[in-house]
């Protein structure tokens, strides 16, 4: 074996050794990109605080966003999003995180719009992969939407003029309380409900223009804006009995997902949104562990190798050769 061949073999062996170490340690280097987001097992996910430390132990996936340009109204200004996921054996948790300098959580004027985020999955009943743009009549999509204003609604009744316009005055509202005079509410339109308690909504669509609120609302959600960053957590039971909903299994190939963001201060709503491409959310049996920073992971791999190589060199210099005691 020539010296060059020996050196090549040594490099290949070192790379393979490093790869094996990464695999055994289930280390995903933070700088790497993948279209699959593993949802690892964690029993202590907080449903009230999306900034909880448990998320430091989850996998994450950085998604590039682009403006929705397929159908009018077209637009969208957000450029990036970080997605994380966990599950506790019963429920799937998906956390979306993005930078947004303004917290647009009130609709208190005719030109005020809310920040919002959504996830889209193929309905469990759909055999084919639906088009990214709101599915198709034969490939229904399940949409989970969160709105910042709904988050505010849970705390104060913005749907009263006295709340949204504190300086407004009216002598009298005749027939106040008769549902027919707030027809959207009388018809059960979820966006018009004065007693909204959840900031998320479960919806189904089979093409753009067909988005419809699901009969059952099995979703949970919470969003918290902190120093220029939104963190929004969605959760739902892995399985859902509702027609049109997505379903998730642990250990399978995963489920296609896409994300969308709206920036209220840019008057974004409906098709004016920033969307990701499809990625895969895959619940796995592996427990959630802290993600190792790149250099820590590199040290774990490289340190034993350096010790081995250094030791061999020292032995060779000292006149020791294998097979000679």
């Amino acid at each position, binding site marked *: 074996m020539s010296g060059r061949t020996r050196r090549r073999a040594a490099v290949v062996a070192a790379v393979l050794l490093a790869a094996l170490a990464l695999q055994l340690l289930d280390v995903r280097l933070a700088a790497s990109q993948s279209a699959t987001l593993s949802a690892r097992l964690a029993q202590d996910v907080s449903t009230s605080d999306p900034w909880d430390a448990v998320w430091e132990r989850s996998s994450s996936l950085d998604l590039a966003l682009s403006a929705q340009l397929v159908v*009018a109204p077209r637009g969208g200004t957000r450029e990036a999003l970080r997605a994380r996921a966990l599950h506790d054996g019963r429920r799937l948790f998906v956390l979306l995180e993005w930078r947004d300098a303004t917290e647009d959580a009130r609709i*208190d004027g005719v030109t005020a719009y809310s920040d919002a985020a959504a996830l889209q999955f193929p309905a469990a009943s759909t055999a084919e992969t639906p088009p990214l743009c709101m599915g198709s009549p034969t490939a229904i999509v399940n949409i989970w939407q969160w709105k910042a204003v709904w988050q505010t609604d849970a705390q104060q009744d913005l749907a009263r003029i006295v709340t949204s316009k504190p300086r407004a005055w009216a002598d009298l509202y005749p027939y106040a309380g008769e549902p027919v005079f707030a027809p959207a509410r009388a018809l059960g339109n979820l966006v018009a409900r004065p007693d909204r308690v959840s900031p998320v909504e479960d919806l189904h669509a089979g093409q753009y223009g067909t*988005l419809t609120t699901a009969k059952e609302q099995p979703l949970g959600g919470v969003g918290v804006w902190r120093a220029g960053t939104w963190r929004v957590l969605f959760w739902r039971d892995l399985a859902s009995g509702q027609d049109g909903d997505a379903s998730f299994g642990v250990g399978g190939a995963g489920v296609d997902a896409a994300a969308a963001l709206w920036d209220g201060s840019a008057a974004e709503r409906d098709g004016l949104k920033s969307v990701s491409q499809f990625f895969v959310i895959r619940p796995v049996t592996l427990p959630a562990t802290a993600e190792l920073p790149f250099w820590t992971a590199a040290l774990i791999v490289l340190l034993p190798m350096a010790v081995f190589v250094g030791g061999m060199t020292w032995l060779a210099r000292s006149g020791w050769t294998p097979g000679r005691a």
Partner: protein
Amino acid sequence: MAKVRNWQLGREMEYRFAEAHPDRQLAFVFNTNRCIACQTCTMSCKSTWTFSEGQEQMWWNNVETKPYGGYPHNWDVRVLELLEAANPGGQVWDAAARGGPYGVFRGMTVFEAAAKQGGKDVALGYAPTDAEWSAPNIGEDTAVGPPGRPGAYDERGAQLPQHTPWFFYLQRVCNHCSYPACLAACPRNAIYKRKEDGIVLIDQARCRGYRKCVEACPYKKSMFRLTTRTSEKCVGCYPRVEGRDPLSDGVPMEARCMATCVGKIRLQGLVKVAADGTWAADRTHPLYFLVHVEKVALPLYPQLGTEPNGYYIPPRWVPRPYLEQMFGPGVGEAIERYRRPSRELLAVLQLFRTTQRMIFRYDIVEGPKVLETTVGGRPWTMYADTVVGFDERGREAVRVPVVEPFRERPARYPNSI
């Protein structure tokens, strides 16, 4: 985008949906010459539909003083500016061209301008702010000053036929357009136009409050309600149009704003629509007669391209260029016919706001000649005819004389009732 025929423009135009016309269309004629801006229409609408929380700034019917007034503020100037910016110098009519009753519009509609700008939206528009929706009667009774001296007194103002200082009242409700921009712009397909009467409605169960209709409607007659977070608009008093009001006796009845008009400026009805979207010939229907036979009533800003179904008899004292921008090139002829009305037109004009029931046909009972005079230097004769209006079932709904009976109270009863 589909190609549709817009007869008001005398040509085809781009629209989001293919042509589909209702069997009948709710339409109305407003005689701006008669309006006194008493706002009775406005208040009757308010007290019927928009008195609830969240509707404080919502006026489905409003009467604004032109040129300075506007609800929302400057709505028409804003829309015209957007169109001019999209098509500089090109927003012109060719009145001599054959195409429609007003010639051919060579400029761009709100749909075509949006397409030219990349198709980001279905219709060119803007979203008025809270401030712009407030003070709905801003500019009331404010006349233009002499040229170059705004606000100054014009000593030579009162000159006919066109005044130098002028204002007039523009009455506005939803035009229940044939090609509604609100409907085209709704990404949720929550807005629909009814086949039976062409009334345009927002489905309050589907609306998610995106306010694209508010942006797109060039007349700004789609409005957002903060308390339900949905958009609402004029419903055309559809229960009355359907004849379901207890007073209507099962036949179509005029909307509240029409029926309460003190100045008798309003006439509303249902016209038959032909397969090509034009009005089916109906010679003795008062609206057909006013719009298509006499052409004395003109659509409001037809160049916007939505084919509005509200028609206006233009105010005769206002400078023609202003009116032509607002009502198209038919203004001169319409005013001339209104100033010197034909015997039939004078009779039909008496039908305005005389009955709550919609009039589907009129008949004229001829009377004696009562006056010979000149109007604009030309001879004009007046007859004491009587006009009779018939409801949907052909029953007599109203009978009005052209010449009001004149009775002199005897001197011995000077103060009695």
